[in-house]
């Protein structure tokens, strides 16, 4: 029983990380109806920046903040420079550009930092928090950080004029343009925010999976699964999906298929959701007129 409880709690911790990355995917999907295949590699690249900063002696939380700012700028620049020219291109072109971005970020990280696996510091203490033994302090902290990020995002989109403008631009670009919202820049800001959220996910997961240029490929897969399970156009659904996938991955991995086939859990989930219920749990059904 204790083992099971530990699996569930550890699942919640990684689930929070998947939830963050899934949220980043959904934010871009809502605005552009595109799934960013390079989201994981962007997060990985930012995590390397954080690693460089902490290695240079910058205190963890300052490095954390600087990395989030860097990620935001990276996201905005990528949208403005690379994605904008193919905004209205066929799906295939956009997917090809995303894949191009993925391999460029991956190889540049490998070029600068080499492919050897690095350890990444955790900002949380070694001793168990509040005397809870089922879950490591880092997992506990990761859940906390995820929840803070989610709350901040919610507040931003719900209570600020800029958040409202961004939601409007995503929902109805034409009308938003008529009332004076600069839709193009709102998209870029959305990319920046998504990259920033992704970088938090990267920094939270790096102490668990260790830092190397390929560390996010599995995580990205779980995030895809999470976004799809929750409904790919529903941010709250993505968060729910993230936690669900995290727990499922751990429990099914520990008791059903064994740790060697954990990634296949994500594969099966993705295909099952897409084939059986493409809208996920909370997605909206899209009806198109033929």
């Amino acid at each position, binding site marked *: 029983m204790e083992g099971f409880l530990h699996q569930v709690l550890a699942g919640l911790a990684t689930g929070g990380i998947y939830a963050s990355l899934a949220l980043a995917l959904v934010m871009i999907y809502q605005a552009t109806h*595109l799934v960013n295949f390079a989201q994981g590699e962007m997060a990985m690249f930012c995590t390397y920046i954080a690693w460089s900063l902490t290695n240079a002696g910058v205190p963890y939380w300052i490095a954390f903040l600087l990395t989030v700012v860097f990620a935001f700028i990276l996201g905005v620049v990528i949208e403005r420079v690379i994605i904008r020219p193919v905004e209205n291109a066929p799906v*295939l072109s956009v997917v090809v550009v995303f*894949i*191009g*971005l993925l*391999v460029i970020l991956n190889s*540049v990280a*490998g070029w600068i930092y080499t492919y050897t696996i690095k350890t990444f510091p955790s900002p949380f203490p070694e001793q168990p928090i509040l005397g809870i033994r089922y879950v490591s302090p880092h997992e506990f902290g990761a859940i906390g950080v995820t929840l803070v990020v989610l709350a901040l995002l919610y507040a931003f989109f719900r209570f600020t004029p800029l958040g409202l403008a961004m939601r409007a631009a995503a929902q109805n670009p034409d009308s938003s343009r008529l009332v004076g919202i600069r839709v193009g820049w709102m998209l870029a800001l959305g990319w920046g925010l998504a990259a920033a959220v992704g970088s938090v996910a990267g920094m939270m997961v790096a102490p668990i999976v260790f830092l190397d240029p390929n560390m996010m490929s599995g995580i990205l897969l779980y995030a895809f699964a999470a976004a799809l399970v929750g409904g790919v156009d529903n941010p709250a659904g993505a968060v729910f999906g993230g936690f669900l996938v995290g727990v499922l991955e751990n429990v099914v991995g520990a008791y059903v298929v064994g740790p060697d086939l954990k*990634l296949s859990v994500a594969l099966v989930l993705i295909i099952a959701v897409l084939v059986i219920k*493409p809208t996920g749990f909370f997605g909206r059904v899209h009806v198109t007129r033929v």
Partner: protein
Amino acid sequence: MSKRAVIGLVLLLALACALPFVVSSYRTFQLTLALVYSITLLGLNMLTGYNGQISLGHGAFYAIGAYCAAILMDKYGVPYWATIPVAGVVCLLVGFLFGLPALRLEGLYLALATFALGVSLPQLIKYKGIDNWTGGVQGIVITKPDPPFGLPISQDQWLYFFCLAVVIVMFVLGRNLLRGRIGRAMVAIRDNHIAAEAMGVNSAMVKSLTFGVSAMYTGISGALGAIAIQFVAPDSFNVFLSITFLVGIVIGGLASISGALYGALFIQFVPNIADDLSKAAPWAVFGMFLIGFMYLMPMGVAGAIRMGLARIARRAQNSRPGAA
């Protein structure tokens, strides 16, 4: 085919036959691999270029083909040439079956599902339940075939000619398929599936059949690749293999038959050149070419050559005296 195209093809064939006698055996081996890749690229191009179904997981079918050949040769002592059709048939079936649920997925979602397949593939191959056949992480080592009938050529040269023969057969078949009724149906579904159905095209059937045939090409290519490299192991079939194939069709030219050859030469030789710079450089180059081609040359090398030839022909016509 025009007379000029026939002459061009004959010259190309003569060049292809002469090459292994003038270059080193390592270069011959590399050319063999380029031939092998060209079959995969033709198969992937049928699915993605002609039919508009994006696959980021074609490494899976390549792996199935490779393992078919390796297991048949290693465990059952089947001669190498007999494994090729078996790999083709197995992949045709698997591809057709995978194509059935994939019918429900449009554009982006199919890309997502196949990407997931590509990422989790090495783990699936390493699965403990099947490592009696697959050899687990260790993979399978197979022996290189000797030239038959006592031909006075080396093993590498023989393998090159063997692959060349398979390539010719597959390209002739592919060309006939794509130029015929089914090929036109594929393109019609890509461009407007509703209109295609209204014209009487059985969209579901054509789409899953395309998936099957595409997988068959890839599987045959995988079997040839395994025989050429003499080794299969799970980690060589990672998601970057699938991405390499995508690079190949984008660079070579989407929806073009000759593009498969250009793409294959690109993915075989460019990494070798870039490798001198850094271990990561080939992928940086691949990424830049992917994005650059999408912006500047969306029809790939084949499209650029076609446009260049058309321009020369036009100029020749204009400069002729009396032409308006």
